[in-house]
């Protein structure tokens, strides 16, 4: 078990390093950021001062070393625009993002697993077809378009819910619904196929032959087994959720980190974009690491074979 976890941890660190380097390459190789901050007529001498101040007058390799060192020290630079530290800017908005993401995640997982299980148990019936068609529809729907439709209906026509902002719980409903519909759709699909796979295993027949009632077969025998592949997939969905929330925060003017990212991207605000990507990457990598470890708990076969996860 320790070996298994150790390998996973090393892999995660490696992944993070690749991300950090990729971010550096993309952001630094893209030309002088100063031109997006200053107007064209700014004298070179002034620009040089700022170049020196922000460390972009050095060679790309030097910059990379400094950059890595800074990150390791927890120094993520300052925003080009208001001079605030990027860390403060992002973390300030993080609670709102976590609120939206967390709510969506919990509700989607519950709804997705429930619907997926129902579809699997009622395979081939109207229930199954209905749920699966809805699931396909939910992730074929562009999330921003769904957001606009919901705004159109519930905010503009019916005037039940606010269109933008994050002041009350009412503000949470529309963005969470938009994100959640897509997420629960794909979770339902995965749960269904995992469940179908489990239901045709011999041990399910053993459970029936034992005289276990239907609900017990499902809850005690099928679900723990179906959870194993489903948890992995749900872990991967977290990345999708963050990507989706960037869009949804923008549409609903939700004052979270995702919206900050979009505005920062629009004005090419280096430090903020960089920090946001790093945070997202570490969150997702950490979540996947947790999933891997959780996997070891869910599947007793892993803890003994050690490293047999793949």
């Amino acid at each position, binding site marked *: 078990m320790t070996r298994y976890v150790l390998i996973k941890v090393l892999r995660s660190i490696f992944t993070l390093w690749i991300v950090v380097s990729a971010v550096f390459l993309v952001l630094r190789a893209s030309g002088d950021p100063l031109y997006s901050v200053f107007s064209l007529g700014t004298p070179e001498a002034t620009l040089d001062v700022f170049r020196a101040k922000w460390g972009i007058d050095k060679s790309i390799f030097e910059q990379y070393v400094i950059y890595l060192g800074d990150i390791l020290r927890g120094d993520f630079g300052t925003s080009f625009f208001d001079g605030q530290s990027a860390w403060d800017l992002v973390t300030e908005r993080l609670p709102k993002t976590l609120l939206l993401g967390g709510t969506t995640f919990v509700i989607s997982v519950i709804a997705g697993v429930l619907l997926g299980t129902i579809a699997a148990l009622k395979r081939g019936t109207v229930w199954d077809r209905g749920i699966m068609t809805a699931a396909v529809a939910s992730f074929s729907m562009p999330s921003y378009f769904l957001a606009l439709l919901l705004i159109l209906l519930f905010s503009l026509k019916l005037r039940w819910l606010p269109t933008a902002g994050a002041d009350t719980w009412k503000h949470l409903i529309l963005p969470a619904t938009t994100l959640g519909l897509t997420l629960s759709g794909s979770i339902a699909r995965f749960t269904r196929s995992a469940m179908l796979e489990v239901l045709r295993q011999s041990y399910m027949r053993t459970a*029936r*032959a034992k*005289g*276990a009632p239907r609900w017990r077969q499902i809850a005690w*025998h099928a679900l723990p*087994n179906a959870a194993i592949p489903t948890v992995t997939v749900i872990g991967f969905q977290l990345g999708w959720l963050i990507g989706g929330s960037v869009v949804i925060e923008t549409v609903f003017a939700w004052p979270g980190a995702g919206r900050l990212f979009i505005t920062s991207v629009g004005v090419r605000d280096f430090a903020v974009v960089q920090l946001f990507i790093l945070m997202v990457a570490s969150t997702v990598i950490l979540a996947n690491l947790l999933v891997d470890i959780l996997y070891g708990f*869910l599947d007793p076969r892993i803890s003994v074979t050690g490293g047999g996860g793949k």
Partner: protein
Amino acid sequence: MIDPSNTGPDAARATPLLEVRGLSVVFDTPDGCHRVVDNVDLQVSAGRTLGLVGESGSGKSVTCLAVLRLLAVRGRVTSGEVLFQGRDLLKVSEEEMEALRGCQIGMVFQDPMVSLNPVRTIGWQIAESLHLHQNLSKSGAAKRTLELLDLVGIPEPKTRFGEYPHQFSGGMSQRAMIAMAIACQPKLLIADEPTTALDVTIQAQILELLSDLKKELDMALILITHDLGVIAEAADDVAVMYAGRVVEEAPVLDLFDSPLHHYTMGLLNSLPRIDRSVDRLSAIEGAAPPPQDFVEGCRFEPRCGHCDDACSGVRPDFSQISDTRRVACMHPVAAT
């Protein structure tokens, strides 16, 4: 419930514990319905072992699943009765059935490695049977589980209790399966190819365990197998199945001594024997047909060397040869 008159071998057919009458099972597939079990009669009494022998696809497993009403959605019973202690199991409610399964009737499956739930400990899975059917406290169930593990010959029950199926060998898994099936001391145990997935050396041990348990608990045992060796070793009575039908029934010695059906004959001829010297073993020509190729009349006819026009067209009736022997053949072996 055990009738003392049942214990002697001659009284075996007096009041059977389980009697299957005219059972037919149909499978619905996209290209039509297939009758995979056709009008099957079986009976077994307490203390006896009925060997159900046939090639794969002959419907022996399906028959037993139908007895426990464990058929998959596609399979359904179209006619017949399954009388267990005089009660027709096909007519009782699902709740009553649940109360019977694992309690009055236990079942052991072919491949123990995949028949045990991989994420539950062995102890949990055995204790579950007790939990479902007996009013035991948690510690009481655990204690009984340890006894059961010991009873089926699993060493170090205390350690094994908390282990998972993947930590068990094939033979040990099958012992655990058996422990689970007999946990509530069932009247009837159905073992579906219990030794097929196991090593030869382990097979004998498992069969011995089953016979011992049968005696100890005075159960009736239905042993499904394709292996005549297993039948010879463990069965009292034998029903030979071919293509969804029972073709011959006999006490085990009579069957091996003088098979009546040409199919049985063919099966026996394909076995090496020490009491007869044969130069080479003969196999039955052709292969057992899949359900869509079942013919009218005697289903063995296409592969039988002794058939004539009378064999095709009508299903051969059983001829009662003696009290304990029946055969469904127009031209039984003894007569030719």
